[in-house]
């Protein structure tokens, strides 16, 4: 899949002879190199989780958040270039706020996703703009129930039961496929997401990471919020235990 597009990759307004836009593919590489972001839709809500890699011990815990509130009933987790992700979240927030102002109701999640995707796509149409180097996983709860969407740098957006981007996405997707999402509640989902993130974290290549978890479900009154501290701790403990058990099984611990 990795090929260089010599000559056809200098501008996002150039197609290659085989119909690819290389600049967008390169934008995806930026995301592939960032920490894993996972989202799952359980039967009563959506859970978002981020493997936030910590490049330096000098960073304050809890800073550089990767999960953002977009509106009362929706939140976004971003992967890839952090500054690009901030722009996307900003746009989502203003779309949601303007919709409420104009129509008197909270924006349906599908509509919000379409608006953000439209904006991201817009930035792939002009030579004087570069594509966003981030993907956003949008989780929300509206009149049609809980929904999970992912918007990619190309401007394409799909609705998912489970989605993952970033370094550990392959392993994460495999793990998500094993989950019985239709029967799972968000309480159980939090533990599952935490376990997946700990599992895909590569201790050899990346040093420390912080787990960020958020949910929007019946239990949170259909509002998007960070997972309460006690549940977060519970999830971390369970995930660490599962990871240690896995390491022992695989004999990765040098004894």
């Amino acid at each position, binding site marked *: 899949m990795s090929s260089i597009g010599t000559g056809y990759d200098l501008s996002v307004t150039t197609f290659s002879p085989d119909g690819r836009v290389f600049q967008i593919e390169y934008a995806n590489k930026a995301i592939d190199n960032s920490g894993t972001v996972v989202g799952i839709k359980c039967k009563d809500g959506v859970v978002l989780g981020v493997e936030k890699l910590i490049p330096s011990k000098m960073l304050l815990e809890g800073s550089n958040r990767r999960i953002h509130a977009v509106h009362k009933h929706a939140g976004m987790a971003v992967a890839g270039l952090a500054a690009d992700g901030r722009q996307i979240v900003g746009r989502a927030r203003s779309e949601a706020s303007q919709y409420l102002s104009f129509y*008197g109701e909270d924006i349906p999640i599908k509509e919000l996703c379409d608006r953000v995707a439209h904006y991201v796509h817009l930035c792939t149409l002009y030579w004087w703009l570069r594509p966003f180097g981030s993907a956003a996983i949008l989780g929300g709860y509206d009149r049609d129930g809980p929904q999970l969407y992912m918007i990619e740098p190309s401007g394409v957006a799909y609705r998912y039961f489970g989605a993952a981007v970033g370094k550990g996405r392959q392993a994460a997707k495999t793990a998500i496929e094993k989950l019985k999402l239709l029967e799972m509640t968000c309480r159980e989902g939090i533990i599952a997401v935490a376990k997946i993130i700990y599992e895909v974290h590569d201790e050899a290549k990346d040093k420390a990471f912080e787990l960020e978890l958020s949910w929007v479900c019946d239990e949170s009154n259909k509002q998007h919020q960070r997972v309460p501290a006690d549940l977060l701790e519970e999830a971390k403990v369970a995930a660490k235990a599962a990871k240690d058990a896995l390491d022992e099984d695989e004999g990765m611990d040098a004894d």
Partner: protein
Amino acid sequence: MEPMAGEWTSAAHSMGTTIMAVEYNGGVILGADSRTTTGVYVANRASDKITQLTDNVYLCRSGSAADTQVVSDYVRYFLNQHTIQLGREATVKTAATLVKELAYQNKSFLQAGMIVAGWDKYDGGSVYAVPLGGTLLRLPFATGGSGSSYLYGFLDQAWRPQMSKDEAERFVVKSIALAIARDGASGGVVRTVTVNEHGVERNFFAGDKLPLFHEEIPPGRNSLLA
């Protein structure tokens, strides 16, 4: 002798009007008189002041006929697009918010007192008043137009929540008839529109169907025609 071209030939069309809408147990009933005037001349004695915005939301118009027609045309257009994009019918709240937005942002140009009422599956029957200036207020019942001034006392006394459909319709017809009796700028027939989960029903009450109040001569007996 009056000049050939009186003031009425150039005066703007105004709907003196009495309009109202009430929530009942299961939906809403909108009601209005049918008199449109240019000055003192009755330009249309059978006008329809209850306009459709969507399948499930209707609008009562009072004030400048032109202004309210334009506002309702814009809102119908916006709601049509919104419904297509949303994939389901628009709510009464959304329709009312759009009417409010136009009324408020253009307050210095418009003379439009409107009532938005309809039924949707989330809030059931709802009535929203959008008077001059562009306030948005959800109420169990609302009135507007020049004739509404004569109704406040009656409504305070007679209105009850959760009326049945027939009770509510009789209530609306009686109110408008009372206003017509006292307000020169309201008259003609009484039109009603009932909106509920089953759909929409239009009704029409002409002179002989309207209740009479003391000292009024019953229609049909005219001393000039023996």
